[in-house]
Structures are given as structure tokens and as C-alpha cells.
């Protein structure tokens, strides 16, 4: 009798799991209102942004606000799309959480140093390129490692961030190196400092941001991949994407875009502004 009861309990559990599974797969039939309609009626766009990435999106502890190139872009785009009174709301995301948050409609769009890749294009739609980054390496000054080839040895460890393209790229360009993936850039950099790996890898813009605050470390080897950043939208939000694309094109034409790029990257030593503004 006891055994029967246990078996029944287990069956119930499995049933619950599978029914959860079913509602996970069902495509939001109830919430079919488009993002564009919702944003127009509330006059607000909710952006998913990074808050741990210097130059792109970094929490300013004193004012409690996030500042960076991505933030200024989002604000400018909001003004172009919704008019002068348009309001931009920011939600912190990480490389790991941004797609799930977009899919469950907590955010309307992602502008968070997100590379356009074929794999991601199957899941989300991207705007045009708004920043042409490339992956690079950061090491402690005086390190033996000069470029990605130096990492392709047994026993070297490279640090990356979960959910980013950089980990996948390292496995391609330096298959012998071991890759450790951490939660965010702050933790990955801490791990580099405490010697958990020889190099930290991600996009050059982010690395320059970290290096500018930590003079004992520098960016080496130039870029070895092309990482074009795009703004991501959920599938089926074509109207919203067209509006944002038009806004970016206009910003490139009227000089707002160049001004923002100059504001954030103009003073970064070794940074190629021309390369970054490629379309």
C-alpha cells in the first residue's frame, strides 16, 4: 500500500513537469499585443542594458543611474521613435539573462553589447549594426601572451563570461586552451587578478573599458573576430524593429551617432573609432 502511494506521488510529479513543459512551449497566445502598440500607448520603451560594463553600461553608484554608450544610444533612439516626450526605462541584464528576459516580455529590446550571430538570429531579430566590435585579449602587463595563438597550448586557461560569443570563439581559435566562464565582467576580471586564468577575452570595447581603470592590465593582439553589435527584438516585432532601424540611420546622418561615439570612445587610447562605426 505504501509503495503504491509512493508510485502515485512520483507519477503526479512527472505529470506536473510535463504539463509545465507544455505551457512553456505554447506561444503566448494571450499576450499577442505587439511591443510597438504597447510602447506607443505607454510612451515608454523598456530596454535591457548591461550595468557592469564600463563605456557601454555601468552603474554609477553615486547617482544610482546606469551610464554608457548603450544607454545614450537607447535614450536617443527612444526620442527619435516616440518623439521628444518619449521615456526610456532601463532594466539590468547580463549576457546570460538577456534573451530569457526578452522572451518573457520583461524588456522590449536588448541594447547590451550583443553580437549579431546566425544562431541568435534564429531566436531573436536584430536591428542594423550600431557598433562594430571585435574580440580581443586582456592580460597582465609583462605577460608572455601576445595574441590568440599564444593561448593555443595545453595548460593555459582563458576567462570569459557566460552566455557570450567570446567563449565559443576561443574554443574555435585556440582549441587547446581551457575556458572558464564566469557570471559577469566584474567577476571574470577578479578571477584574472587572482590568477585563475592567463587572459580575459571579450570584445575590445569592453576590455578597453576595464583596462582604462586598471593600469596593470592591457589589451593585446588586436581583434581576431568581427563582433557587430545589434539591438535585439523578439521574433514577430517587425514594426518596432523598422522604427528603430530608421532612427539609427537618421542618427548616423544628422551626426548624433558620431557625437555619442566620440563622447565615450574618443579618449580611449588605442581604440579605432572608424572601425567601430562601420556599418
Amino acid at each position, binding site marked *: 500500500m505504501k509503495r503504491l502511494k509512493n508510485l502515485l506521488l512520483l507519477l503526479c510529479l512527472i505529470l506536473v*513537469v510535463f504539463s*509545465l*513543459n507544455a505551457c*512553456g512551449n505554447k506561444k503566448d497566445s494571450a499576450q499577442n499585443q505587439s511591443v510597438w502598440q504597447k510602447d506607443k500607448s505607454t510612451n515608454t520603451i523598456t530596454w535591457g542594458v548591461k550595468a557592469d560594463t564600463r563605456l557601454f553600461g555601468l552603474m554609477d553608484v553615486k547617482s544610482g543611474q546606469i551610464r554608457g554608450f548603450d544607454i545614450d544610444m537607447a535614450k536617443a533612439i527612444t526620442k527619435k521613435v516616440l518623439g521628444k516626450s518619449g521615456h526610456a526605462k532601463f532594466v539590468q541584464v547580463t*549576457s*546570460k539573462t538577456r*534573451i*530569457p528576459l526578452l*522572451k518573457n516580455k520583461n524588456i522590449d529590446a536588448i541594447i547590451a553589447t550583443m553580437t549579431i550571430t546566425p*544562431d*541568435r538570429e534564429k*531566436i531573436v531579430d536584430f536591428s542594423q549594426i550600431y557598433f562594430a566590435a571585435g574580440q580581443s585579449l586582456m592580460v597582465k602587463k609583462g605577460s608572455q601572451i601576445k595574441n590568440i595563438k599564444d593561448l593555443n597550448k595545453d595548460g593555459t586557461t582563458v576567462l570569459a563570461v*557566460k*552566455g557570450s560569443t567570446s567563449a*565559443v570563439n576561443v574554443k574555435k581559435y585556440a582549441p587547446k586552451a581551457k575556458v*572558464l*566562464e*564566469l*557570471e559577469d565582467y566584474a*567577476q571574470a576580471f*577578479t*578571477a584574472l*587578478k*587572482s*590568477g*585563475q586564468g592567463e587572459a580575459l577575452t571579450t570584445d575590445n570595447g569592453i576590455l578597453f573599458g576595464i583596462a582604462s581603470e586598471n593600469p596593470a592590465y592591457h589589451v593585446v593582439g588586436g581583434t581576431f573576430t568581427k563582433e557587430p553589435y545589434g539591438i535585439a527584438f523578439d521574433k514577430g516585432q517587425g514594426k518596432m524593429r523598422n522604427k528603430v532601424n530608421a532612427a539609427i540611420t537618421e542618427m548616423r546622418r544628422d551626426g548624433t551617432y558620431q557625437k555619442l561615439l566620440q563622447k565615450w570612445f574618443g579618449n580611449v587610447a588605442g581604440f579605432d573609432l572608424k572601425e567601430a562605426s562601420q556599418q
Partner: protein
Amino acid sequence: MISVFQQHGQELLVGFGNTLLCSVIALFFSLIIGSTFAIFEAVPSRFLHIIGRVYIEVFRNIPLLVIGMFFYAVVPQYIVSIDGFTAGTIGLTLYTSAFIAETVRAGIQAVDEGQMEGARANGLTFMQAMRHIILPQAFRYVIPPLGNQFINMVKNSSVLAFVAGFDLMYQGDMIASTTFDTFNTYIAVGILYLVITLPLSYYMRYLEKKMD
């Protein structure tokens, strides 16, 4: 969900193995360390008493994540180079041992004082009395709460994911971020945790019955 197991079985298996290994190591050492500090608290020595108290209060009242990050980021910088798995396992062991010490101490206190007096009157030393008379009775009292601690410990081992310890949660994060199938991946990870915790839970219950 089944496709997650089919396509990423290898990674999940590695994660499962590491979680299990970390849990077994932490269980063994936290039981030893925890019991030691529990005895410290029972010994009639003010010095040992204070050491036990400080150890328990420090490790019981700092979040596990902080302890884990300390061993991962700070210890290698200044003391000795250890990897994420080791750092996480040490953190988990120390954290859990503080709770086990509190649990075992409660068990020792629940044993009637007359037992110790009787044992001492019959010529046993304090440590002999502890080992043969008090502890066997104390452990019998604390099996149910001890079981809770062990189950919590297995779940807490997910702290390894934050220090790149290649455990179940780390692999789950990895699979979720490459396949974007967050939902099914975390369900699969949850089921694998159940595979460890449910038998543990039933075993503790069995022990409890056997003791009665």
C-alpha cells in the same frame, strides 16, 4: 526536455559527477569538522568554548556565496592557488560544518546530564565518555535535522556555478546560453538534483526508523 538529455547528456553527466563529488567530500568533512566544534562547545574549557563559538557564528552568518567567492578570488591572490571546484567545495564544507556543529551541539545537550556524571563516576575520561556514551545518543536525536542539513548542502553545492566549478548548475547555464532553451534545460537540471536529494531524503528517513 528529453532532447536536452540527448544532445547535452555528456555535459550534464560531467556536471552531475562534479556535484556528487563535491557533495560527498563536503558531507564527509563537514560532519567531522562540525562534530569537532560541537564537542568544543561541550568541553568544560573556556578557551575551546570561545573558539567553537567564534567559528560557528562566523561561518553560519556569512552567505555561502561570499565564502565561496572569498576562496576563489582572494585566497589564490595572497595564499595558495586553488581552482574553482576546490574553492567552492572548501567554502561549502566550512559553511555546512557550522550548521552541523549547531545541530550536533543541540543533540549533546539533549542527552541527560546524569549520563555524563555516571560515566565519569565509573572512571571514564571526558573524551571516553563523549565517545562511548554521549555522542551515540546525541546522533540518534539529531538524525532528522542532520538529514535536512545534508539535503541543503547538496542544493547549496550549486554555488560552484559562480566560481566556474563545472557542477550541474554551471553546465546548465552553459547549455541554456548556447541553446537558448532555458526552460527545458533548468527542468533537466532540477531533475538531476532530485536524483541526488530524493534517495538521500529516503535514506535519512530509513535511518530514523531503524533507530527507533
